[in-house]
């Protein structure tokens, strides 16, 4: 029996000819990631277990992004703990605030060219599944797994079965990767892909830019998925050429394709032309509705995060805000996902567009997405957010509400002062 794309990557890293779903394997890792929340507990485990040094200083990536720039003394201590470890271990991929490559982990790893097709990556952050967009296998783990992986360079996996998601057609105007993944999560539920891979395929994939694909794979976890993965095509190769031409030219990557007779537990077809502008109402990402059917007043809009803080996202938002203004009484917080995105937006005048529109612009941070800082909600407040979770209390008070949306809906909502689409604007 044939293998899925994910299974091929796992087999290759386990030194096996083939693997089957359900099989437990030990696999070598190409990159191991941690952030300022998950790494400090991992460092404690790392030291407690008597590990001396990381398995490879070039294959461990540590990113301060969750509570940074630090919101209080305790979070400053966490970041300091990680910073000291990074210095002590001489970690190459540590991204200090203000450095060119800094920002939100899942924005900067692809944009800095350190995740490649065929790579096997784990990260102590659930949204590590983002890198499937470039044809890698990547998945989230906890701090103890991170500690053991930093020490040994390997970890165990249960080989997942896969759901094949066949994308056909071309997305309608303003429909983004966010709408597509919310639509899928709405179809299958928050546990619809539990323990499984989501393998995206079909001619519709060609209409999706790398930034759109990154958004889609980022939220595979929100339907329980172990990973999401896209085939490697001209969009992938163009992106690699831009982010790491040396590695691309050296051919130090493998473009896996699924076998024709690979087995899938389910095949889901989505005609992209029929996917509406979609929002997820509180308190689950699967509680989706067409945005046009929702009429709710709001207090705040957040534009950014590892889901929607990339250049294309910021550019799209700016185009909607150009010549328009945030509704009086509404706060709109724009958070470019990385220093590079921030700088490009500055150079292209996009930050001025936001400023003119009455948005506030933040340095890159996860910040409000997880209720950390930079936009926490009070009781009874409602936020339209381009982030990834709308759980109870996710962005603040337990009686606050988060409505998940793509960039065009979020920007239009800020201007309208209620859930709206760009078609509702004059």
């Amino acid at each position, binding site marked *: 029996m044939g293998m899925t794309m994910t299974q091929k990557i796992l087999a290759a890293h386990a030194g096996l000819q083939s693997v089957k779903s359900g099989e437990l394997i030990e696999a070598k890792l190409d990159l191991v990631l941690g952030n300022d929340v998950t790494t400090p507990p991992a460092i404690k485990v790392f030291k407690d277990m008597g590990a001396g040094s990381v398995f490879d200083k070039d294959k461990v990536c540590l990113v301060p992004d969750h509570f940074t720039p630090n919101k209080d003394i305790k979070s400053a201590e966490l970041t300091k703990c990680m910073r000291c470890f990074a210095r002590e271990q001489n970690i190459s991929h540590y991204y200090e605030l203000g450095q060119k490559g800094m920002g939100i982990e899942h924005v900067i790893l692809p944009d800095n060219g350190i995740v490649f097709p065929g790579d096997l990556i784990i990260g*102590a952050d659930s949204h590590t599944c983002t890198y499937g967009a470039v044809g890698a296998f990547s998945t989230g783990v906890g701090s103890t797994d991170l500690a053991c992986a930093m020490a040994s360079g390997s970890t165990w996996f249960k080989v997942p079965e896969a759901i094949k998601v066949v994308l056909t057609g071309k997305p309608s105007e303003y429909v983004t990767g966010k709408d597509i993944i919310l639509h899928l999560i709405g179809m299958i539920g928050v546990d619809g892909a539990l323990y499984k891979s989501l393998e995206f395929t079909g001619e519709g994939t060609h209409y999706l830019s790398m930034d759109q694909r990154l958004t889609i794979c980022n939220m595979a976890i929100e339907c329980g998925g172990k990973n999401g993965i896209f085939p490697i095509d001209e969009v992938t190769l163009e992106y690699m050429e831009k982010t790491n031409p040396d590695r691309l030219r050296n051919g130090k990557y493998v473009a896996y394709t699924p076998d024709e007779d690979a087995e899938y537990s389910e095949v889901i077809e989505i005609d992209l032309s029929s996917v509406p502008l979609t929002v997820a109402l509180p308190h689950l990402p699967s509680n989706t509705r067409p945005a046009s059917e929702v009429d709710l007043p709001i207090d705040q809009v957040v534009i950014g995060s590892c889901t929607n803080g990339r250049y294309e996202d910021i550019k799209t938002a700016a185009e909607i805000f150009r010549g328009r203004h945030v509704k009086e009484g509404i706060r709109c917080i724009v958070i470019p996902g990385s220093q590079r995105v921030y700088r490009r937006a500055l150079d292209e005048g996009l930050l001025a567009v936001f400023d003119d529109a009455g948005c506030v612009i933040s340095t890159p941070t996860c910040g409000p997405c997880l*209720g950390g800082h930079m936009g926490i909600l009070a009781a009874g407040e409602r936020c339209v957010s381009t982030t990834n979770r709308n759980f*109870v209390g996710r962005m603040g008070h337990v009686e606050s509400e988060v409505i998940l949306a793509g960039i065009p809906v979020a920007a239009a909502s800020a201007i309208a002062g209620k859930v709206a689409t760009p078609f509702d604007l004059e």
Partner: protein
Amino acid sequence: MKVKGNVFKYNDNVDTDVIIPARHLTSADPEQLKLHCMEDIDPSFVSKVQSGDIMVAGKNFGCGSSREHAPVAIKASGISLVIASDFARIFYRNAINVGLPIMECPEASEGIMQGDVVEADFDTGIITDITTGKTYSAKPFPDFIKKIIDCGGLVAYTKEKSGGAGDI
């Protein structure tokens, strides 16, 4: 090994944000985390839970964020076992890794009610609802997972595999 305790019952899709909200993640100390366990879904949990009590929930327990602080907080609160219909995969790994006992059993998840007294045997996988007299059988762990549990968690397992502490 057997555990016995009063049941705290929850629904499907209990996420790690409600188990331990991110505003408390500035500490990874179990003694701090346990003070806020389940705070956003069951504010009275911390004052009611007693050592040995058992948590029972529906599908997809522990979904969302990969924060290991979630199983750590539950374990530190005194909970001796979490029974669910199934677990989100990162939570499943984290629970095994930090030594929080978990059992997958859809029937028990449905049949057991808030406040029931339940006994569970880790060796046989038999769950007994003493209040109703019903018994359930949990899905057995794969051998490899059992080995990690028997070693006392992933750290001990990794150490054993590499021939002891030292340069791993």
